Each structure stands twice: as structure tokens, then as C-alpha cells.
């Protein structure tokens, strides 16, 4: 029996007859929350957001209300709000749907947030490949401006704020908040060193800046509607609100599915919601939060203690889909990109594919990531190409260990976690690969087998 979705952010996504223009949005009750918000005290909205416990949907899962609290309000400099719409984590495709199908929800969420933090100006940083999304947002902002929902003196409240849509030029690193800020400023998206450049104090143009994910900003709208307490009742304590899980890979019905946090387990998500694996296939592994999250092996037993002290003993199918549970099993919910792999997957090839991506996207600013990640790519590529060595697994692990925690931004971790976890859990396959190739070479055959890699 399929489990029923509970859509909050995606309520109108794919709804027949629902269009992305402002009239349709208002007809469905849109902009009511903004009207409410501008009558509230900004600090009260901040308090509601803090009480809601909403955690960032971009990857790190940091409480948004807390982030807002860190804003340097004493500096006297203007405050900026930036919406991070540089959705580029492999396996994630939720923000694009919001922008394409419900852009006004984002705009309303942003204006509520901008009012709450008293932002002088708001930006949407949209990745360069989302050209359609960019045009949709531009039109939506124009529509909203005509109705005085943004711009000068919004709804007669005396508060003014505009939104500028800034297109990226197609780089994963622009999703890193300080890299994104550099990019808006017109520079190479080289992430900044922290300290001292924490965006909440020294962000865009060295002014206090809040960078939030698209989904997080949409959540703010619903927090105003439901109240912080009401919103916190969705999900479980510490894991509030809904999450959109973008399921891809070897399932019958890949796609986006929205559930309250903890409402489904990974097993339910794969077998009940997504219709299970392809016929005759067995589950081999799952990457639960976008390609940088650590991989989970299907036959693992996960034991340990949750934050609140309760002990758990789960198989992969029992893991509740929320922030803390996925963290507890050694991975993360990240950006919600669930990548499912069945037993037809060659783990070396899968890792080679992931490494290819990160090596291509490293910005090249700091040494460990710039040199280490392409090295890992070269190693895995060589393994796929028929030159695998048994010691490569240990080498890969060691390179990844030398990157993680030593870089300017979290990209270093993002690139080394897949390698660390693939080797930790599938080392036998990496060694096996080398032995098979050696055996084939001995028989006079080509060492490499056909691959599906680009």
C-alpha cells in the first residue's frame, strides 16, 4: 500500500490547472502570509522561525532561525538576503520545480524573510543552466512588483525591498555561500576564509548577509501561516517541517516526494513510495542526501544512540528519513537527493563518476581540494580503464583523509566523503576489480570491461 504524501511546499506542484502566474497563486491563497507578516514585528517573525526549529534545506541542516540570530545588526551596514538557488548537487531536483511551477511561493517566502531580518535588498542566485527558471522568476518578480508585493513601501507597510535575480555561470562551487557571495560581487566564486568572513557579519559587499536555500525560504511562509509552534508539530522535535526527497537511480518511480521529517523510512520510500526496484534486482546501496553524502550499504546494521539518547538498531530499510537519524547512521540528509543503487551497480564506476564531477567542479583555490580531488579522479578513472591496482583502495582513502577538514570550504568534505565511505564499505570490490583485471590480462584479454561512464 502506497504511503500518502503530505505536501506543504510542493502542494501545488504538478497540480492540474495550476499555473505559475500571480493570479493563479493569489487565487490559491497566495501572498496572504506576506500581508500578515508586514503587520507583525520583524523580531517576532524571527522568534517564530527560531521556535519552528526549521533547519536549512541546502545541505548542512543548520537551524535557519539560529543563522538569522547571528546577524550583525550593530554594524549599521545594510543587511542583505540571498536565496541560494544554485541547486547543483547531483541527485537533487527540488528547487528547480519550485522556481518553475510555483515561483511566487519563493518570492513570498523571501519577502517575509527579508522583512523579518529587515533586509535592504534581496537576491536570488540562480544557476546559469536554469535559464527557463530565470525567465520565470523575472516575470514573477515583475508581477509581484506591479501588485506592490515587493519594491517600495510594500503593501503600505513602509518597508521597501526589491529582489534581484543573479544568474550564475554554471559552477557547483557557487552553491557554497561565500563563493556565491563572491560570484554576486562579480568575482571568481572562490569561497572565503572563515574566520573572518562569516556572511552574517561580513557577507555580500562586506555587509551582514543571510544566505538561505530556496526550500528553506519557502518554509518561512508556512511558518508564518502555522506559527512557529504549529510548524514544529510537523515532523519530530529537532527535525521539523517537511522534506522533499528527490529519489533517483534504480527504482521504478523516481521523482520528488514530500513527507514530514521522520514520516517515512528509507525502506518505505524506496519500496512503497517509489514502487521498489526494477524486477529481479536487489538493493545494493543508497546515497541518502546528494552525491556528497556518505553511502549506506544495503546489508549493513546500523546501531548507536540518537541525540536524545534512544538506542537504535536498524537495517537500511528502517532508517527514518530525517536529519538526525541519517546523521546518526553516519551519513546526512543533505539536500534530499536519494540515489538508489541496485546490485547491477559497479561501485568503482559509480565512484569514478562521482569523482569526475567533483574534480571538474573544484574551484582550485586551496591546495588539498585542487590537487587531491583530481588525483582521486585519475585513480578511479585508471581503475575503470583497466589499470587497477590492489593498493589503490588504500591510496584513495588516504588521499581523501588528507583533503577532508583541511580546505577553505566544505567542498573538501563533499568530495572526500564519497571516497571515504565507498572504500570503507566496498573495499572488497575495489580490490576485486584489480584482481579481475589482472586475471583477464593474464588470459590475454583486455583488462577493462565495457563501462557506462561518460
Amino acid at each position, binding site marked *: 500500500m502506497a504511503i500518502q504524501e503530505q505536501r506543504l511546499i510542493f502542494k501545488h506542484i504538478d497540480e492540474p490547472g495550476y499555473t505559475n502566474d500571480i493570479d493563479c497563486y493569489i487565487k490559491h491563497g497566495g501572498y496572504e502570509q506576506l500581508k500578515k507578516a508586514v503587520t507583525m514585528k520583524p523580531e517576532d517573525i524571527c522568534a517564530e522561525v527560531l521556535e519552528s526549529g526549521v533547519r536549512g534545506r541546502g545541505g548542512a541542516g543548520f537551524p535557519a532561525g539560529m543563522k538569522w540570530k547571528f546577524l550583525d545588526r550593530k554594524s549599521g551596514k545594510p543587511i542583505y538576503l540571498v536565496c541560494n538557488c544554485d541547486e547543483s548537487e547531483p541527485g537533487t531536483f527540488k528547487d528547480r520545480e519550485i522556481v518553475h511551477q510555483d515561483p511566487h511561493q519563493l518570492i513570498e517566502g523571501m519577502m517575509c524573510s527579508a522583512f523579518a531580518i529587515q533586509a535592504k535588498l534581496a537576491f536570488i542566485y540562480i544557476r546559469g543552466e536554469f535559464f527557463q527558471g530565470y525567465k520565470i522568476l523575472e516575470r514573477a518578480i515583475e508581477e509581484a512588483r506591479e501588485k506592490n508585493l515587493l519594491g517600495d513601501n510594500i503593501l503600505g507597510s513602509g518597508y521597501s525591498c526589491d529582489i534581484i535575480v543573479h544568474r550564475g555561470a554554471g559552477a557547483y562551487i557557487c552553491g557554497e555561500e561565500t563563493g556565491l557571495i563572491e560570484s554576486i560581487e562579480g568575482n571568481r566564486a572562490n569561497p572565503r576564509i572563515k574566520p573572518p568572513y562569516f556572511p552574517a557579519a561580513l557577507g555580500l559587499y562586506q555587509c551582514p548577509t543571510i544566505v538561505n536555500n530556496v526550500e528553506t525560504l519557502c518554509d518561512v511562509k508556512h511558518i508564518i501561516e502555522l506559527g512557529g509552534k504549529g510548524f514544529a508539530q510537523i515532523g519530530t522535535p529537532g527535525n521539523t517541517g517537511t522534506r522533499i526527497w528527490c529519489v533517483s537511480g534504480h527504482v521504478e518511480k523516481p521523482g520528488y516526494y514530500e513527507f514530514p521529517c521522520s514520516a517515512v523510512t528509507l525502506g518505505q520510500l524506496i519500496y512503497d513510495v517509489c514502487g521498489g526496484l526494477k524486477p529481479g534486482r536487489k538493493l545494493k546501496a543508497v546515497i541518502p542526501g546528494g552525491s556528497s553524502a556518505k553511502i549506506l550499504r544495503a546489508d549493513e546494521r546500523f546501531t548507536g544512540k540518537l541525540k536524545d539518547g534512544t538506542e537504535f538498531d536498524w537495517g537500511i530499510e528502517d532508517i527514518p528519513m530525517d536529519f538526525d537519524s541519517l546523521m546518526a547512521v553516519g551519513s546526512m540528509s543533505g539536500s534530499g537527493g536519494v540515489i538508489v543503487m541496485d546490485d547491477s551497480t559497479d561501485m568503482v564506476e559509480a565512484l569514478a563518476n562521482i569523482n569526475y564531477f567533483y574534480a571538474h567542479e573544484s574551484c582550485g583555490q586551496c591546495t588539498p581540494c585542487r590537487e587531491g580531488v583530481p588525483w582521486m579522479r585519475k585513480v578511479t578513472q585508471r581503475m575503470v580503464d583497466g589499470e587497477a591496482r590492489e593498493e589503490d583502495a588504500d591510496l584513495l582513502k588516504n588521499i581523501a583523509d588528507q583533503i577532508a577538514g583541511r*580546505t577553505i570550504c566544505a567542498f573538501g568534505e563533499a568530495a572526500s566523503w564519497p571516497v571515504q565511505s565507498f572504500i570503507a564499505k566496498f573495499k572488497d570490490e575495489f580490490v576485486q576489480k584489480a584482481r579481475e583485471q589482472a586475471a583477464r590480462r593474464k588470459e590475454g584479454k583486455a583488462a577493462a570491461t565495457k563501462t557506462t561512464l561518460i
Partner: protein
Amino acid sequence: MEIKNIVENITINIDGQDVDVPKGTNIIEAVKMVGKGKEVPHYCYHPKLSIAGNCRMCMVEMGMPMRDRATGEAILDDDGTQKIGWMPKPTIGCATNAAPGMHIRTNSEMVKESRNGVTEFLLINHPLDCPICDQAGECRLQEFSAEHGRGYSRFTEEKNVKPKRTKLGPRVTLDDERCILCSRCVRFSKEIANDDVLGFVDRGTYSTLTCYPGKELEHNYSLNTVDICPVGALTSTDFRFKMRVWFLKRTHSICTESSVGANTEIWSREGKIYRVTPRRNDAVNDTWMTDSGRGLFKSIDADDRLTHYTIDGVHKTPTQAAVAAAELLKAGDAALIGSAHSSVEEQFYYKAIADRSSAKVALVSHYDSADGILQSEDRTPNLRGALVTGLIDSLPEAELSAIAREINSGAVKTLFVVNEDVTKLGIPADALSQVKVIYVGTHANETSQGAAVVLPSLSVFEKDGTFINQSFRLQRFKAAVPGPSGVTSDFSVLEQVAASLNDEKPAAITIDVAWEYIAKSISQFEDSLRWRGIPDEGLALDAKAFLDIPFVETKNLKFDPVAFKEAHATPAGA
């Protein structure tokens, strides 16, 4: 009379040792203060540039004393000391500022391991061509690889290929494969030279240092990028492949290009100078100097160098020439054209010679446009010296037409010229032919050609001496290479001229003997001051007596005339 800002000191603990450092000092500098050769290895950090934090070599472990979050009380260890909360990850020393109670480990396993990792990463795509690389011997990558590397390579893949032998500008050659992308040169061009021409193109491991399209690295400070390049990526086109740096002798000197008096180092071997680089002096030039100042040494080997003492064109001994000069001066009606290129010691002697022969003294100004950095308006190194020694008491004129008039009227019959071509300064050749000329200088010119007596002198690279720069800082330079054979030290010849004027026997003079007289007779110097006693970073003199002189220098890198005047009008502690 140094003006120092009072900075609060704080105590931090480095490898178990308490160290007092000024507040705000970063960990790299703080560790240097521990002394004993202790250092945090680093590539991208430079004390005079902004912090980039990209090389990740200066990783240290950092911990702070732990406090209970609720009560704010110190959490104590079993032995009663405050517990230290160590960060789980290493942190970069360059961007970490010392805070009270901070604990630093510069040599723990985690630190060693991360340095080892960074070193390995930097080497995998490095061409490892030290045997043919000019930087070898002064290469951070080479040094740190030996100290912190694993000694063998685990990299079996193909290395990246990048552009080689790129001509970045008229004086700088770039090898991109050697580049470790530390961005020092990029930051220097932007922040110090104010010419933002360098940058990176392409992404990730293919990042490549390059010049802005259609532009060149041609500003007058481009060779500083070569100095600060920690590897052999940027090399001086002039110095390339000339000499291994470990063969070169280093001599402290002063740049004579302008009154800034940038501190320099002369690199020479067997009497030949190979290059000139800046020497750090935070009060004068930080760690920089101009490209034009680096090329000045080339003139010492010029064909028109004066190498013989002559009387009426006939070679003589130094003593004969000096006595002949004194005889001419004794005849009276003499004028002395001094030079702000002369050292303080020489100017002291010129003053004595002028006094004893009752010669009137004139200097010529050499002003040009300034760049606001390290090239000031006054293109002589020692105008302040001429004032301090009393050779002149006001700023020099731009030319010598006043002297020319006196020659024409017969009031001047002998001209003692130091290093100037007076024919280009308002004394036409026909006027010059009416007087007897004594010429002291390094190079031949129209004035020296007709001179009755020629006393060849040594260049700044060949003698010991001092200059006084725009901020009245007495700075010492040392001989790096010997002068032309047969040319003796300038002040021993000048001593002979001066002694002959008084009909005395000349003393065998050395620079320290000369300073016994100089220190006694000039009020700005302590009586006990000797040339050898002048510190390497120079000595700030009391400039009170000269504050009303309208010097031409405007604000540049380390000198602000307005602030200087204010500070010296009311001495510190007053």
C-alpha cells in the same frame, strides 16, 4: 626617535611555552616571536599582503581554555589547570589571530600529517625540475618538501600540462607548471603596485596564472612578484640561468634611485653583481623596491667609466692628482658643485674642502614625477645628507646659470664638480673653457673631458658609506664588489685634497676614522656614533632643524610629509 603605537600584549601558549605577543598578531608571526628558529611553514601568507589562506600549509592545532557554557566558570583539569578545548580540525595560522589564553600546537601528529598531505598535493603536478630551475636554493617548495614531505611519490598518473616560458612582461617570465597558485603575485599587483593585471583563469587543477588579456605585467614593481613567488614560477628574465643563488654573496646596500632609500641586498660573486633585491625595512620600503632601482648596477661596467686619475689628460697617481686639485683650489675664486648622490662622508669632506678653499657651494636638484610608492620626486639618495653636513643650507636650484654668470664676470676661476655634467645645467662649453675644472665622478661626460684634474670615484656598489633618506633616516651601505683597479676609496683622496689645502700631511683614513670627525662635528649624530654602529635598519635622526625647508616629496608608501612634520615638531614623550 621612533614613533611606536602602544599595542596591548597578550599571552598565548605555543607548544607548551607561554609567549607574550601583541594583540591581533597572527599565529605565523606569533610563532616567529618564540625564536629559536621556530616557524610555521607557509606559502601564500606574506606579512605585507592581505590574507588569502589558500595554500593550507600553515595548519596548526588550536585550543581555547574551556568554560562552562551555563555558568561561565572555568573547567579545570585533574591537576587544577584550566582544561583546553582543542578544535577537532587543524586551523590555518595565517588567518588565526592570537587571543588571550589561546593554545597552539605547531608540531603535533595532526599538524605534521596535514603538512605532509599539502606537500604531497603540491608536488604531484609540479614538474620537479629543480636541477634546471632558477629558484633552486631559495625555493620554499624545495625546502618544505625536504622538511615536511614524505620523500617519495605515490602519484603514478599523468601530470597536468600548462604553459611554459610565458613572457608575462618585459622583465618577468612565467612557468605555470611550477606555480602553486598561492596568489601572492596577484595580491601584490593589486594591493601594492595598484595595477591589477594578474589573475587566474580556468578552474580547479587547471587554474592558470595569467595576465589580463591585452595587458602585460609591466609596472615598475613587477620584479617584486619574482621575489615573493615562493617557487620558480615567476623568474626574472634578466637573472634567469645566470647563476645559482647559493654561490652569491649578499651585501646590504641602499637604493640610490630616489630619496626613499629603499634597503637592498646586492647579490654578487667574484666581483660581479648578478642582481639586486629589496631588503625588508618596515620604516622605509617594507619588502619592496622598484624595477628601475634594480637595474642601476649595470652602469658600473659601462664603457665610459672613469678609471684613471689624470692631470690635463695624463695618467697620474691619486696623490699627484689630489695635490694638483688642491693647488688649483688654493688659487682662490673657486666654486664647488656638490652632489646629492654623494655619501654623507663625502659631503662632509666637500664641506671641508669648500671651507678651506673659501669656495662657494651649489648643488643641482634632480626632480621628477613620483609614483606614490617607492619612487619619490627627489631622484637623489642623499639630499638630506647635504643639509645635515652643512654643505648646503637650502634646497638646490634646478640649474647653474648663477655660476655661469660668475664665470663670465671672472668671479669664478676654478670649478670643482662632483658627478654632474654642468654643460647640461646652464654652464655652456665656452663658459666652462674659461675655468679650470676639477672633476670627481664615476662616469665620463662633457665636463670631465675638458677637466684639468680628474679624480675617478667609486659607485655605491663599490664603497662603504651612508645616506640620509626622505625621513631623515641615516642608512648604511657596504661595498659589494671592488671598484675599477687603481681607483682608491673616495674619502682617502678627498682627505688628501683637504689636507693639502691646509698644508697638512694627509692621514691614512678609514671610514671609522672619518666618522670620528664626522660624529663630533655634526650635531645630529651622537659623538660616539661610528659607521659600524649604525643599525641595519637605519637610524632616525632629529630633523627639527630642517622642518621649515619645503622639501618636494609628497606622500608615498611609508612617508607622509605632513605627519612627519607634526611628529617631529613635538617629539615623542614631550
